[in-house]
């Protein structure tokens, strides 16, 4: 295989037309006449996509010449950026050497973290107590991402009958749908409870050891996804509908906002806040860290499953 062919394949792969795993993975569909039809449909759709409200002449002018310079400049600027960053890092004071860096912040986190936050896990104490404002923002970053994906993928009147929903795709989905597969179901029955319990453990143990809301929520979300792929949406919808998912996210985020707002308010006005720190090492310790971890974990789990569900069927849950 010569270089040109590789390059051609590479760019086709970048465009998404070429599947590297085609004919390798078990169960892939052989390209048939429906594939050709889909390709033509895609081409037509792409043409419409790029030309709506914009003249083809301008696009062509943008493409010619511009692309060559563009690739050249991109490579050069990447190399320059890498060089500059490496040079900067090489100039930084070396670890252990005498340097003018202030250590008062990290020292206090390590030395007095347990006493001041009540959490054995200093990292949890840092992100949910000392610097809780950042984490408040961080949990809303996830929420903002969910909103964007919903705007893009949620099925509605506008994209319901779009040509991307071609029958080939549906056929392919049905072919790969393993929810009727008995091996998948048996294995699912075995591992899903373990994964969910493990997720809850990580979530509840965030103040005492490695873990916390983000990681626990991600594990729980993954458990839900495996549950869905083993048993299908019908079973998930019996307890986890779109409404439930939205309500969980809403209640968790609201709780997070107001609980933290209360702590900020009390702290800034030098008032005593009524949240007990608990005994370090116990489950109920670390003040607000445990409830906040639960809130974050629920949001993360809902968001992860929401993404999966949006990509698979265009809604965050059943009606």
């Amino acid at each position, binding site marked *: 295989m010569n270089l040109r062919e590789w390059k051609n394949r590479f760019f086709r792969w970048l465009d998404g037309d070429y599947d590297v795993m085609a004919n390798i993975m078990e169960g892939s569909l052989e390209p048939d006449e429906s594939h050709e039809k889909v390709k033509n449909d895609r081409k037509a759709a792409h043409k419409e996509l790029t030309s709506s*409200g914009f003249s083809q002449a301008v696009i062509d002018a943008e493409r010619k010449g511009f692309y060559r310079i563009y690739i050249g400049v991109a490579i050069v600027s990447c190399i320059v950026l890498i060089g500059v960053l490496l040079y900067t890092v090489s*100039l*930084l004071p070396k670890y252990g050497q005498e340097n003018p860096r*202030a250590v*008062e912040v990290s020292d206090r986190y390590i030395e007095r973290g347990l006493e001041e936050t009540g959490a054995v896990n200093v990292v949890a104490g840092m992100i949910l*107590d000392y610097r809780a*404002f950042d984490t408040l923002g961080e949990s809303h970053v996830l929420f*903002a991402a969910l909103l964007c994906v919903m*705007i893009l993928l949620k099925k509605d009147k506008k994209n319901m009958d779009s040509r991307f929903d071609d029958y080939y795709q549906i056929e392919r989905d049905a072919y790969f749908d393993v929810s009727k597969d008995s091996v998948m179901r048996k294995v699912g029955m075995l591992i899903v409870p373990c994964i969910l319990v493990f997720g809850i453990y990580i979530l509840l143990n965030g103040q005492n050891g490695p873990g916390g809301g983000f990681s626990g929520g991600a594990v729980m979300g993954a458990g839900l996804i495996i549950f869905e792929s083993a048993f299908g949406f019908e079973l998930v919808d019996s307890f986890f509908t779109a409404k439930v998912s939205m309500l969980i996210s809403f209640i968790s985020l609201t709780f997070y906002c107001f609980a933290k707002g209360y702590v*900020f308010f009390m702290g800034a006005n030098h008032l005593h806040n009524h949240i007990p720190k608990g005994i370090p090492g116990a489950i109920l310790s670390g003040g607000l860290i445990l409830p906040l971890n639960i809130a974050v974990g629920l949001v993360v789990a809902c968001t992860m499953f929401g993404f999966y569900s949006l990509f698979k069927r265009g809604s965050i849950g059943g009606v």
Partner: protein
Amino acid sequence: MDIIRNFPLMTIILSLFSGSLCFVLKGKTARFYTIFFEIFLLTACGVILWYTVTTGASVTYPMGEFPAPWGNEIRAGILEALLATLFMIIMIVSVLAGYRFIDMDLDESKVNLYYAILNLMTASLMAILWTNDLFSGYVFLEILTLTSCGSLIVREIGRTTLAAVRYMILNLLGSGLFLLGVVLLYDLTGHLLMVPMQETIAGMAQDPRLFMVLTLSTGVLTVGLAIKSGLFPFHFWMPDSYGWSTPTSASILSSLVSKAYILLLIKVIYRAIGLEVFERMPIRNLFLVLGIMGMVIGSIQAMHADNINRMVAFSSAAQVGYIFMGMGLGGSAGYTAAIFHIMAHAVTKSMLFLTTPRLAEVSEDSLLFRKLQASALRNKDAGIFFLIGSMSMIGIPLFAGFSSKLQFALAGVESHSDIKLIAVILALAASSLLNAIYFIRTLIRIYSDPHGNMRKVRVRSPHRLGYIFPMAILAAMNLFLGLFSWVSIDLIVRGLEMFG
């Protein structure tokens, strides 16, 4: 009146809450809620402004019980409160004048998501204005990036999707570089809070080797924010993003979001690096050169546009050039001019972006110049407001654009450098001339009716009052900034004094 000290915290927390509330509300309820909530926020910001002006000191507010170098902190001074008030006014006006288009462009089931995104955007704008901490700045910058992508893709026509992808890639590159800069600065100083960081940096800047590292890290951070705000070589995402999105998004993105990044940069320069240390770095001259190039090239590209929204968007690139030129001139005068221009441009550009769809509406829904012939005669209200906006952009006296150009010239005089003064005056003259050429061309196009038969297809635009009222607010603010520029300049100067 100590309760007012809590208002900055309240604006952030309540906007975040509104974001998740709109997520569960129905579309129409979400819109009403958002409008009322924003009016409430405007009042709160106004009260903070009044409080800081009367007490003459900024409000430092620890987030939680831990004091400055250990816990987060927010701080509200005159400058932040002034800009927050202006931002809220523009936010309200954009929603009021654009919600009809939101209802048209979006599916009914997604309208509440749009308002949720707007509320999160408000929260991050507020947090970026108030924050005193580099990493909080980064977190809320991330929310701003995501929500602005979301506000672009809501209009599901092909071109917006492409524009949003391009916007997202460039913005993520910018965020990444900003984060790298923050990490390097943290590694150097051991602080994320801006004020303690500045103290450490002041000591470091004496050592030439450390000064070099400081310059490079600040440079990485600056390039990140420059990409996000659309400084000259990085402005190519602008025309598509602003040109095809729903009017409310275009107005908010061009006048608030890209300005918020610049304000964060100014905050980093003033509060984290220290103005004196920054002025020793060569980055400042780069601002001047790129700013001037952006002013000229953005205007030239605007002349080539065949579509009115793309023209206005390219002119935004030129205006970002003005702001960076002011920062390049440096000194208190340069930054005053830059911030005044942020205000003047926000008021003007939101007016233009909210007006062009009204012109297109009476011209077969097309933004192309050839279809827009005599459109101002068909929709007279939109014509008048486009005229006001154009005159401000060109820099005709009485309007905000003139005052800000005057400020740039004065900052050039105060820079005590002949080359800089000549460059600034020439750039201002060239850019104003080019602005005049393409805006007057547009005005002639939309007001002339060569065959005398175009005005007959008069379409009476629905919700006329819902358009005139918010636009009248913007026009009044424009005139206020133009005629009584000394009021806001006085506030900016006082704000900058307590900003560092």
